[in-house]
């Protein structure tokens, strides 16, 4: 790959002192021989890949899930996950991208299509015949937790419908909802809006498109470039006006902040403006709290709540802000998961050849949840695919922390997953 982004990340291989800490903590190499470990496929193999080779020499890097535990534990700052991501993209550039990966990359398109007739789409997808076919033909694991289209309308529909009655204020914030909220889980967006408005912010939901992360993960850099450029174009005016662009999906916000600009060599002033304006919602709420601006009129919620920080937070590098806020809610017994990864890793766990690896990786998390006792009613996690995986692996409902917070404000029903006065 001849992009400059090799060179933002390639030199970090120089930091590697071969100490093996990364391999010791990698959850994927712990469960399968197919993945020799981050040190091997990252900085070590990188010295054997370079431009102009007759072919890509390796394939085991494909089993890297991108969870970034390696980056987090590396004492010298090797950007291992990024090295691996580029190596995978290189393999795909050479060998072509399978149809399955192209499909999984087009989350937004799939979302749109299904929401035309969501009931039918859900029926069509979520029956055993379809799933078996999808596995045989496309390689999508039959048991992997694919989402359901919302049968209550999309988030966009709700935004339009409620335009007139929603809060107007001098304090405004832009909400970046992402595809999952839009097509599968509009209630996440509703909870977010409720929390913003409770804190006195008017929520703007301008035109926006998919962040492109699934395309990036599957090596379709050209398509991802278009997506990102479109988002930059659409959101720039808000960033330049000093508004924060806040998202509830840790993967979307990471893509806007860093992943897209870095992988695609988006070095422009505009892309930087978007980066500096983008916030994860709990990162943003924590900032408000640090300035004494967050309303803390919480009801008591008595529950043992296992919380799992999604892997993307490792790349955000802002700590675990949802924990900082959820601990303010009286009655919540927050249990921080030390599990490394739920396993799904974006689109990784949906692939037939990786499904079992993903479940084996996630076992650490599922066991942790089970260990928190019988009283546990639900788990919390900021990333949608993690929540689906958690539900799949624990048989317990999983909620976005923003839903918990909205419920603590008395605005949201955690069981029905809807606003209380809607």
């Amino acid at each position, binding site marked *: 790959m001849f992009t400059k982004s090799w060179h933002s990340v390639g030199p970090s291989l120089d930091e590697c002192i071969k100490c093996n800490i990364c391999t010791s903590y990698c959850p994927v190499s712990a469960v399968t021989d197919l993945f020799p470990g981050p040190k091997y496929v990252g900085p070590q193999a990188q010295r054997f890949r370079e431009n102009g080779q007759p072919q890509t020499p390796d394939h085991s890097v494909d089993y890297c899930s991108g969870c970034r535990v390696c980056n987090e534990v590396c*004492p010298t700052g090797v950007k291992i996950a990024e090295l691996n991501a580029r190596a995978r993209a290189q393999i795909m550039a050479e060998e072509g991208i399978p149809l399955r990966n192209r499909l999984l990359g087009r989350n937004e398109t799939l979302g749109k299509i299904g929401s035309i007739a969501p009931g039918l789409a859900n029926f069509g997808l979520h029956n055993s015949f379809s799933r078996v076919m999808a596995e045989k033909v496309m390689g999508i694991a039959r048991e992997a937790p694919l989402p359901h289209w919302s049968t209550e309308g999309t988030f966009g529909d709700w935004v339009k419908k409620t335009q007139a009655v929603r809060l107007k204020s001098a304090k405004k914030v832009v909400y970046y909802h992402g595809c999952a909220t839009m097509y599968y889980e509009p209630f996440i967006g509703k909870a977010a809006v409720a929390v913003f408005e409770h804190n006195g912010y008017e929520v703007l939901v301008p035109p926006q498109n998919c962040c492109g992360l699934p395309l990036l993960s599957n090596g379709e850099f050209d398509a991802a470039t278009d997506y990102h450029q479109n988002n930059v174009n659409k959101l720039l005016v808000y960033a330049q006006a000093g508004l924060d662009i806040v998202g509830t999906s840790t993967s979307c916000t990471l893509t806007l902040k860093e992943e897209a600009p870095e992988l695609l060599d988006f070095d422009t002033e505009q892309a930087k403006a978007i980066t*500096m304006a983008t916030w994860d919602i709990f990162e943003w709420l924590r900032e408000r709290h640090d300035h004494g601006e967050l309303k803390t009129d919480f009801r008591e919620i008595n529950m043992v709540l296992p919380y799992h920080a999604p892997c993307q937070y490792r790349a955000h*590098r802002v700590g675990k802000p949802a924990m900082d806020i959820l601990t303010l809610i009286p009655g919540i017994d927050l249990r921080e998961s030390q599990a490394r990864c739920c396993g799904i890793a974006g689109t990784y766990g949906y692939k037939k050849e990786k499904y079992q690896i993903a479940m084996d990786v996630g076992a650490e998390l599922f066991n942790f949840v089970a260990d928190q006792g019988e009283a546990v009613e639900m788990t919390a996690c900021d990333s949608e695919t993690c929540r689906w995986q958690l539900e799949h692996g624990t048989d317990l409902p999983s909620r976005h922390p923003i839903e918990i917070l909205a419920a603590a404000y008395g605005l949201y029903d955690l069981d029905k997953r809807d606003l209380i006065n809607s």
Partner: protein
Amino acid sequence: MSDLLIIGAGLSGLMAAYTAVKAGLRVNVVSKGLGSMHWSAGTVDLLGYSPAQPQTAVKRPLEQIPALIEANPHHPYALLSNEHLAQTLATFVALSKDLGVPYGGAANPGDNLLLPSPAGAARPTYLAPKGQLAGDLSRSEPMLIVGFTGMRDFYPELIAENLTKLGYPARAAFLPLKLITQRHDSNTVQLAQGLDNKEQRALLGAALRKLVRPGERIGLPAILGMDAHMTLLAELERETNSLVFEIPTLPPSVPGVRLFKSLRRYLQEQGVRLTAGIEVITANLTAPNGVPGAVQWVESATSARPLKLRADKYLLATGGILGGGFNSDMHGRVWETIFNLPLTMPQDRANWFEPGFLATQGHPVFNGGVTVNQHFQPVTENGQLLYGNLWAAGNLLAQSDAILERSTEGTAIATGVAAAQALSS
């Protein structure tokens, strides 16, 4: 906001966190990654060799340290009284029991242990995890060193031959690697995790029983279980009716990982926030003339805006050259990367190294570091306090080469605890 922000999650940072949280402080620990516990033998080296007699292992370190300090009054151990040092080590031993990885010392209290190294040398060390104690070469039982064919990080024949040459009778034997793993590729951590499995444990015990002769003790590479380590040890000793001990391997160090993980979990249960993957890159400082300055906050890079981390007090425990707390360049400059604290090593490459890798006097570049006062606060070369709310501990401290002296963990624990005590009072 916390009371104390510790930068660095090595042994000194974590022991400081332990001390501070016990004193009632709210503690936040951030680190770029994980630290050198993952590479070392998992023992507590207090003082193995003194510069005055580099050829002879120190027999009773606490008694030797006063002479060490007299010859080098700026040694980090000079900041602590002998009683304090002994007390801190006792605290560590007690804590290790709570952690589920109990540490102990030589049969004759106050002696160094002499433990087999992975090359078959005799390593002097003060405290070792229970799993290594039966390897003390002061014991008389002959040793059976058992390795696994094709396990690349452990060579029993080399170990046995060298131990025997040194006067400690040992013989070697092999078991097939397939006995304990079905994987083609395993590092030591993965092998240890594999041995948490009940079936594998039983297979290993049965195989060892066939190999061992009466009166022998069995040495194995340090892969005897991760979570089930203590159980596995007991099982093996019962099954073979012999003492069993671990010998540390090339990194990653399983005993080090056990200690790290258990200490981290313990601290989290006490309410300490530990976040890895946060690299503190700069500090916002005030330093008005004539008065010690203060740290306002420190910053780490994120995927967007820098993250500001604030606390009442800050403790730097970033480990020096190996830990990443210091950087150096081709012009001979060495600098501390966050606060730019003055360092004592020669700023001139001509004076950094000796020609021999194993030179007995060590390499001067590794001897330098941060100078602190008796309260563990960094000072200028004139002894002036630099920042009123900054402390420093661990192997970044000046005037000792802990690898040369074999005092790494002793320095880390003792100064980490003492610095936290100083800042808590």
